[in-house]
């Protein structure tokens, strides 16, 4: 890196950032209850499925969608040392909610990137998907952590493979935000 001139160094960083985030459009974030100590949590269990609609009839009660989320979450949590409880009360209860809504983009991004001239840049409508994961401490019954990912899912629900990839990416990146246990 030392031998690269500043513009090249910037380019290399940009490439690295793109490689890390894959498609750069997914926004991922989390909130953490201050003072919570994740080292004290060992086990988790799923909360009963929520009755809230996703906003998209293709995904409501869709087992292919829901089972993919659950399998991804279980795999990521196992990799981080959490155990799914077989019986008894777990330390954490996990809720999730997925929703789909239409959003309008006024092509601000295209214009900034110079893909269209001012007169050409037309607004367009796309489908945005949000996945929220909540962790609740069963002793205090308080939310200790919430993570979410939001991205365009245009055309992805209609393509099972693309949908699964998007779910995989969302769950992986949300749970990367989970505090490390010491």
């Amino acid at each position, binding site marked *: 890196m030392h031998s690269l001139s500043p513009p090249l160094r910037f380019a290399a960083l940009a490439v690295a950032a793109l490689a890390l985030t894959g498609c750069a459009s997914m926004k991922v974030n989390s909130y953490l209850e201050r003072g919570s100590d994740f080292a004290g949590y060992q086990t988790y269990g799923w909360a009963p499925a929520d009755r809230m609609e996703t906003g998209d009839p293709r995904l409501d009660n869709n087992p292919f969608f829901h089972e993919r989320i659950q399998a991804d979450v279980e795999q990521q949590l196992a990799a981080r040392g959490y155990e799914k409880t077989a019986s008894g009360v777990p330390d954490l209860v996990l809720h999730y909610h997925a929703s789909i809504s239409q959003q309008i983009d006024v092509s601000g991004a295209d214009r900034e990137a110079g893909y269209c001239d001012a007169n050409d840049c037309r607004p367009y*409508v796309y489908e945005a998907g949000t996945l929220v994961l909540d962790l609740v401490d069963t002793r205090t019954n308080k939310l200790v952590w919430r993570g979410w990912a939001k991205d365009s899912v245009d055309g992805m629900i209609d393509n099972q493979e693309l949908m699964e990839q998007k779910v995989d990416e969302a769950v992986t990146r949300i749970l990367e935000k989970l505090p490390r246990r010491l």
Partner: protein
Amino acid sequence: MNVSSHVQSGIDFARYRTYDWGPADALPTGDPRLDKDPFFQDHLLGAVEKQLAARGYERSASGTPDLLIHYHASINQRIDVNRADREHGYCYEDDCQAGVVEYEAGTIVLDIVDTRTNRVIWRGWAQDSVEDVLNNQDRMAQKIDEAVRRMLARVPPKLQSP
């Protein structure tokens, strides 16, 4: 019309022969004109039965069928940005106002459940604008026929002929 489906991987449809209707769902359609509308429901059921018969499935007369079919229909308000005017040449580039239009979109979802495992093994859907469709019985019938035909064309074919 937007038509697609999800399928459980590794399922062999050749082993299914008979089906029946599962209990109707109690979910609202989102439009009072369709809730408990017998014309809509009867036409949809008839269209599905015809397509399944053509594909070699038999509606079971007695006993437990191999498959149960569930359906759900819903109507949503959706928005689109009006690009059609420009594409049809009704306006010039600088004139074309990007208008946001609201329309009614209808979705029919069909779920196929394996009665032995009680799992959904296939879900298909069709979505389209239903502007001026709900108010017109003939157009609604045509729309249902097209939706059902195109959805069920995506059910993996049975390998043996019936």
